[in-house]
């Protein structure tokens, strides 16, 4: 992770790796000397490859995120197709050229079922079948189970082909082997809001495929306007960290496609991670409503096949995040050293002025003056001693700097978040809010929040959707700042929201040049950072406030509709009770004349229960009418707000591009 940014150029490092192969094989090399693939193998869980199920999930998401980045980098609306195909064991064996062997010595296997155990299981299943027999639908399933094998053995690995096709930038023909075959090949200089968790992209997935199946990966790619498609089949020489190319050729590009298609075959587990993968796709669709995803799961069993299409809802894309320089309060000694090495600036003044944000010329001069007598503006920056760098670092810690601006960030945008929520959840109500840029430890961050009420496929209570740098976070939800805030620090009832019964969607997206993840898996943001938690809280509250007025209006309207019904419901009870008493009365004892008359009328049946019912019902209607009138005069005549609609562009017609902009629309000529 950090080892990647530690400043060695890849060539240098590779040389060192090569020279260290022998010592690494002896096993006791230091972490720094360890070759990347071995580091990965030992730290699979950090990268999200804890178990086959999670590996399938992580592989898919790494590929999808790469695809998104690639399309966004050339400002093309992403069109991404993901296919996960289940591969049976015999098919896998034939792929690797292994002959299927029947089991000869059954007792040798872990899942061997002794005669006694089998008897027990069959008896149990028969009993269950008897019970289920009354429910005709389930019988078939049970029978299927009976014919299947017993308990699943530990050695039964499942294999999957994961294919991800995008319409992004693509890769140059000759670069492909090195882009995939060399792990930790890129170094990042500068600071930027990035999607991936470790910047390793798909490479982890490639190592996983190498580790679990040993099958090569296949890459097809074409640059924009390129007449051919590059095809490459390769795998990684893990120990030497170089690509091992099986096939590398140019093929015909018939439909002017550009982008990349990557195919890996890995061990995985669809059953356990099915819902996680689908959730991920859905949440990704929420945060990127400008892209189109087609997700397919292909299995040998027809019923298990799934195809989900997440349609595009807008063509407004967030800007590509700009690269920015470091903020002086966010650098450490190592980073300063690294910046000194890489800097093209000669003297200290220029160095301070150009390698950091928020240091102007006069400010830099004052800083140098403060550093002490051994520093001067003209001193060569490469000649700084270690002690001097420590001094600079100390000053950076103590001095006051303006906060970094959020210009370098690329939030999803309130508009997009809103569209995404509407598109995927179809809620009854939605409110969104975007915070102003804030700062934590020298890194700017923006929090965007959305709250939805109701919708389809939303369970009762709080449904929390977390996004960090525009990718969904699915794991380790419990300790996350968003979960904690929504559960503990928001008093939902004060916004007329029922935390237990309403279907509440809480969407919080945080973007930053550095997301302060907690835990090994980089799956959640700690709750202890008050800067972030207070912004999250206020963003959610702002959304709730917007919703509250809507909810109150809705409640009022509902109350108005139900008032008459609710009041009328009690008319019979009240009338009956009154008449019960009145029937018992005898005239002539009352002081008031009207009372006597009333009692006589009751006795003579001029006034009956029906009379009271009628009068009370009339009264209720009168009251309802008056209240409705009052309500209408208070509110005025109001129309339902109009929702903007999005009509997606015709496929393939994008090439002709004369856009005529009007105040409310854009007009494009289609040939």
């Amino acid at each position, binding site marked *: 992770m950090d080892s990647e940014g530690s400043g060695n150029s890849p060539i240098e490092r590779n040389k060192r790796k090569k020279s260290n192969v022998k010592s690494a094989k002896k096993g006791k090399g230091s972490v720094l000397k360890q070759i990347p693939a071995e580091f990965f193998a030992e730290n699979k869980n950090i990268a999200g490859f804890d178990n086959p199920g999670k590996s399938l999930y992580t592989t898919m998401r790494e590929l999808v995120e790469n695809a998104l980045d690639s399309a966004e980098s050339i400002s093309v609306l992403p069109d991404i197709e993901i296919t996960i195909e289940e591969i049976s064991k015999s098919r896998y064996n034939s792929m690797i050229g292994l002959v299927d062997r029947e089991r000869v010595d059954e007792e040798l296997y872990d899942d061997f079922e002794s005669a006694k155990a089998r008897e027990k299981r069959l008896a149990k299943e028969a009993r269950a079948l008897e019970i289920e027999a009354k429910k005709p639908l389930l019988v078939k399933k049970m029978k299927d189970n009976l014919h299947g094998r017993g308990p699943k053995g530990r050695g039964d690995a499942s294999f999957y082909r994961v294919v991800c096709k995008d319409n992004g930038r693509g890769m140059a023909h000759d670069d492909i082997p090195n882009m995939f075959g060399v792990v930790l090949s890129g170094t990042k200089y500068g600071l930027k809001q990035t999607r991936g968790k470790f910047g390793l992209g798909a490479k982890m997935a490639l190592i996983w495929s190498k580790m679990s199946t040993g099958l090569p990966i296949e890459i097809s790619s074409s640059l924009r306007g390129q007449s051919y498609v590059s095809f490459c089949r390769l795998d990684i020489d893990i120990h030497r960290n170089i690509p091992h190319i099986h096939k590398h050729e140019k093929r015909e590009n018939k439909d002017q496609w550009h982008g990349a298609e990557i195919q890996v075959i890995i061990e995985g587990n669809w059953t356990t991670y099915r819902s996680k993968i689908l959730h991920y796709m859905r949440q990704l669709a929420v945060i990127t409503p400008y892209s189109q995803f087609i997700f397919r799961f292909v299995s040998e069993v027809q019923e298990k096949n799934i195809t989900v299409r997440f349609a595009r809802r807008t063509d407004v894309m967030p800007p590509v995040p700009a690269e920015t320089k470091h903020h002086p309060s966010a650098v450490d000694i190592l980073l300063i050293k690294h910046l000194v090495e890489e800097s093209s600036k000669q003297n200290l003044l220029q160095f301070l002025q150009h390698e950091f944000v928020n240091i102007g010329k006069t400010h830099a001069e004052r800083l140098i003056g403060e550093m002490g007598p051994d520093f001067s503006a003209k001193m060569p920056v490469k000649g700084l001693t270690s002690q001097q760098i420590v001094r600079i670092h100390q000053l950076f810690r103590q001095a006051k700097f303006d906060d970094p601006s959020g210009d370098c960030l690329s939030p999803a945008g309130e508009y997009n978040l809103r569209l995404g929520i509407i598109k995927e959840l179809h809620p009854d109500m939605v409110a969104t809010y975007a915070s102003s840029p804030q700062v934590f430890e020298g890194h700017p961050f923006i929090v965007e929040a959305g709250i939805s009420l109701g919708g389809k496929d939303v369970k009762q209570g709080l449904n929390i959707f977390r996004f960090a740098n525009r990718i969904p976070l699915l794991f380790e939800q419990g300790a996350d700042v968003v979960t904690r805030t929504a559960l503990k620090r928001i008093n939902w009832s004060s916004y007329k929201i029922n935390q237990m019964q309403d279907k509440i969607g809480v969407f919080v997206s945080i973007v930053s040049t550095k997301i302060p993840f907690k835990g090994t898996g980089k799956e959640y943001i700690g709750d202890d950072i008050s800067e972030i938690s207070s912004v999250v809280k206020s963003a959610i509250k702002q959304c709730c406030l917007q919703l509250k007025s809507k909810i109150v209006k809705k409640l009022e309207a509902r*109350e108005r509709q139900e*008032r008459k019904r*609710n*009041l009328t419901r*009690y008319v019979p*009870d*009240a009338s009956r*009770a*009154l008449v*019960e*008493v*009145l029937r*018992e*009365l005898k005239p002539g004892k*009352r002081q*008031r004349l*009207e*009372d006597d008359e*009333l*009692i006589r009328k009751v006795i003579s049946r001029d*006034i009956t229960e029906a*009379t*009271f019912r009628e*009068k*009370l019902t*009339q*009264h*209720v209607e*009168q*009251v309802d009418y008056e209240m409705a009138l009052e309500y209408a005069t208070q509110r005025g005549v109001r129309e339902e707000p109009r929702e903007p609609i999005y009509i997606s562009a015709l496929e393939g017609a994008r090439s002709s591009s004369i856009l005529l902009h009007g105040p409310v629309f854009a007009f494009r000529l289609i040939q």
Partner: protein
Amino acid sequence: MSERKRRRGDPAAAGSSGKTKIRSDASSSPLLFKNRLKPDSIILATLQQLHAAEQSSSSTGKVPTLAELGLSSTCREVSDRDPAAVRITIEDSILAAARSILEGRGFSFSVPSRSSSNQIYVPELDRIVLRDKSSIRSFSSLSTVRKTTITVRLLALIHQLCTKNIHVTKRDLFYTDVKLFQDQTQSDAVLDDVSCMLGCTRSSLNVVASEKGVVVGRLIFTEQGDRIDCTKMGVGGKAIPPNVDHVGNMESDALFILLVEKDAAFMRLAEDRFYNRFPCIIVTAKGQPDVATRLFLKKMKTELRLPVLALVDSDPYGLKILSVYMCGSKNMSYDSSNLTTPDIKWLGIRPSDLDKYKIPEQCRLPMTDQDLKTGKDLLEEDFVKKSGGWVRELELMVQTKQKAEIQALSTFGFQYLTEVYLPLKLQEKDWI
């Protein structure tokens, strides 16, 4: 072990004796205290004094009424009324409602508010009373339509009861229209509203709660003509009738009334025939007292002019129960004049008794945070503040953070309560 060490360091709890001393005392102390007991005749003499004082004082110590205090306009109180009067009142409000409906105005009731904000403690009366704030309960409002309907339904039912002059329980009342009332708390709450609204006690509405209290001892009374001798009621005692109106002709040669918080202690006293050794009437409501028990106690106290001594747990809850007997509960504050029995003497078990009678450490319990909070709240209550002795006891309890139940005395033998503790207490006139 560590618990004990901590306590030893606590100056309030340690008293004069160290740990070893307590332990050796624990075996000898029952004997020690028993030796201090004088013959029963001397104890009886002290009780005679108490009795005589009560007999004479009660004639002079007349409790002022609200009218005498000039509070009748600002405070509300209910009184016992006969069924015919209740009937007339109900008929009047029903007729008013009927007229209002026929005129096309719907109908509404004016119901006195029973919320705590509408209650005050009157020190001259030594009880909580209800102020005169009331609210309009209208049929035409969504928020009150339900309660209004329940109110009119209950009025009809009570009218029927008063006409036929029969009694039913609150539960019976609820079952007459389960569909409308939905659950008993709703009909119970409106019932209290109705008795407030009509200005009569709940028993005048001919609605009673099921029986809970028990009495045993030197008391003879008639219940609907049946003569009942409470000395011949066995160990279980006589259930206090839900309708105290039916109780009459009380006779007693007892010297005092012993009010017991718990059933277990009551049973011990009854089985040991404590009332034969020291003539008394023993009453318990098994925890929080119900209306019937409070009415019964009040009736005994006023008719027989006997002093009342209370035996409750040494914890805030015991004191709370005592306060309900003496000052009334918040829920029934409109009827506090009929339900409260002021001037109950706190006999035991008082926090100071724990050390005085050397109740061993293992029988004392640490107070929970909730207990401490209740204790501190009680210190703020007016009825506690007016008695210096009570304040001192309560302060001691909060300070030592220890509580004990009546059963703690059983460490010295099951009969220690009846044979040593109570006689000694009475002999020493150790009540406040």
